[in-house]
């Protein structure tokens, strides 16, 4: 039934889509390939295939430190952001809430503004308060950055929850704390987990805010950036491949949890 024009449009946009996807996925493919084989004079030497770089990688103490820092920052920032997000979302859904629009604007700002503004504003504030740059300032920066995503996911779930559940709970004599513990929290649990994984992915990769707040401390993206500037070793490709696989796996988990099919199976 489709006209020829329509079919031609499908074909053209389809070709463009495949070209775009090829470019977008080139980083994974190229670094994965270069991490296992040598390139000499622009030719791939298949005979040199080896996974040794994935082993020698761990002999580099700066990489291990950077990875550990990244993990600490991500976990602490995500826990802080999720706690704050639940509190803020519960407030936003409360009937007596005032200033909700203003509060939401402040929550979303670090996500909407260029990271350079968020980064340097926290840097200036920390310096005015005499706080030295390091792990704690990076954690604050990441908390502020991922809060928007965490808040949005928790609030969406809270809005979808029938008010009758909370009313029923209090009618049956539950205290507010009991209602929170036995009704709200189980209902929010999956949104909290999804939000946490998404926030972990964002924190894992955050570069432009971190660079202002890190001081002498280093995270994985900062370490990679520094390594890129001095030239590169084959180990970098192995590291980069690992980084990409981890972030894509985390993102795929989020996508799977947020998928329409996934949700219906869950409820």
């Amino acid at each position, binding site marked *: 039934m489709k006209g020829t024009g329509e079919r031609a449009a499908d074909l053209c946009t389809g070709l463009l*889509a495949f070209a775009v996807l090829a470019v977008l996925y080139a980083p994974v493919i190229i670094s994965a390939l270069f991490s296992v084989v040598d390139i000499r004079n622009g030719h791939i030497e298949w005979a040199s295939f080896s996974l040794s770089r994935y082993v020698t990688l761990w002999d580099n103490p700066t990489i291990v430190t950077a990875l550990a820092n990244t993990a600490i920052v991500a976990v602490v920032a995500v826990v802080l952001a999720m706690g704050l997000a639940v509190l803020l979302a519960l407030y936003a859904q409360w009937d007596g809430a005032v200033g909700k629009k203003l509060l939401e604007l402040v929550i979303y700002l670090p996500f909407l503004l260029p990271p350079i503004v968020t980064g340097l504003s926290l840097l200036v504030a920390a310096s005015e308060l005499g706080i030295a740059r390091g792990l704690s300032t990076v954690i604050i920066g990441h908390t502020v950055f991922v809060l928007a995503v965490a808040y949005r996911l928790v609030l969406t779930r809270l809005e979808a929850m029938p008010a009758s559940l909370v009313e029923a709970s209090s009618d049956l004599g539950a205290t507010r704390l009991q209602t929170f513990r036995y009704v709200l929290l189980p209902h929010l649990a999956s949104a909290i987990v999804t939000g946490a994984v998404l926030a972990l992915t964002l924190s894992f990769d955050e570069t*432009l805010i971190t*660079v202002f707040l890190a001081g002498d401390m280093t995270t994985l993206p900062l370490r990679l950036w520094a390594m890129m500037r001095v030239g590169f070793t084959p180990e970098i490709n192995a590291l980069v491949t690992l980084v990409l696989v981890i972030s894509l796996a985390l993102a795929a988990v989020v996508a799977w949890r947020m998928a329409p099919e996934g949700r219906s199976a869950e409820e």
Partner: protein
Amino acid sequence: MKQALGKWIIFAGVAVIPFALVLAPIASFLVLSFYRVENNAIIRDFSLANYANIFGNPTYWGTFLGTLWLCLEVMLLAIAIGYPVAWFVWRRQGRARYFFLLLTVLPLFMSYIVKLYTLRSILGINGLLNQALLGLNLIEKPSLLFLFNQRAVLLTMTVIYLPFAILPIFLALERIPTNLLHASSDLGATARVTFRRVVLPLSLPGTIAGALFVFVLALGDFVTPQMVGGTSGFTFGRVVWSQFGLAYNWPFGAAMAGLLLATALSVIALAGYVASLRRV
């Protein structure tokens, strides 16, 4: 009256952390932008000298305008490529649609630094682009034209920020009720007319909002220009960054960041307004 006061006290209790971590830092750097630096020490005299310097010095002013122009180009290129791709994804049915959507969104989560690193190696003198052009006999020797210039910054930013354009366009297309499309074709419109009279106008607000989002992202980027732009890839974000690093003039950097903030806020406000215009 008393009750209203109580509500605001609760608001203050809840809002104190976000306000302290977001608004107070922004206020502190804006205050800093009115100070000046002498002998590596910040002199706390209130003056507009930093702003006068930005607007009075053609180098800074020119870099600012040049950056706005670059961001505009990134935005237009991202829409020109992103719209057809989003349209293609939207035209798929069922699982295929979700699968393609996932494929276009996942690169958002691939490490930013890694993307820069591989794009730099693709654009470089021994990179894939040169190898491909050589292989096709389109050029005779590897070209230096693709790296360490403004064009490289433009291409790299477009690739990095493209998924941010595709997603909002797709969401705008998906919001169009199918019965409007059926009605249009029942009334005898060809696919082309339906696209021009129904699909395009209804997806335009979401598309513009997505475009403006790409603009803001490109505006603040200071690592891409440095990594692929070399010495000729000087953008406003990079100038701001250098004031907080090598140049060590925080108040002046803060003033330039103030200009960046004002620009970003205007663009975000515009995007919010355009998005509110959507008709379905």
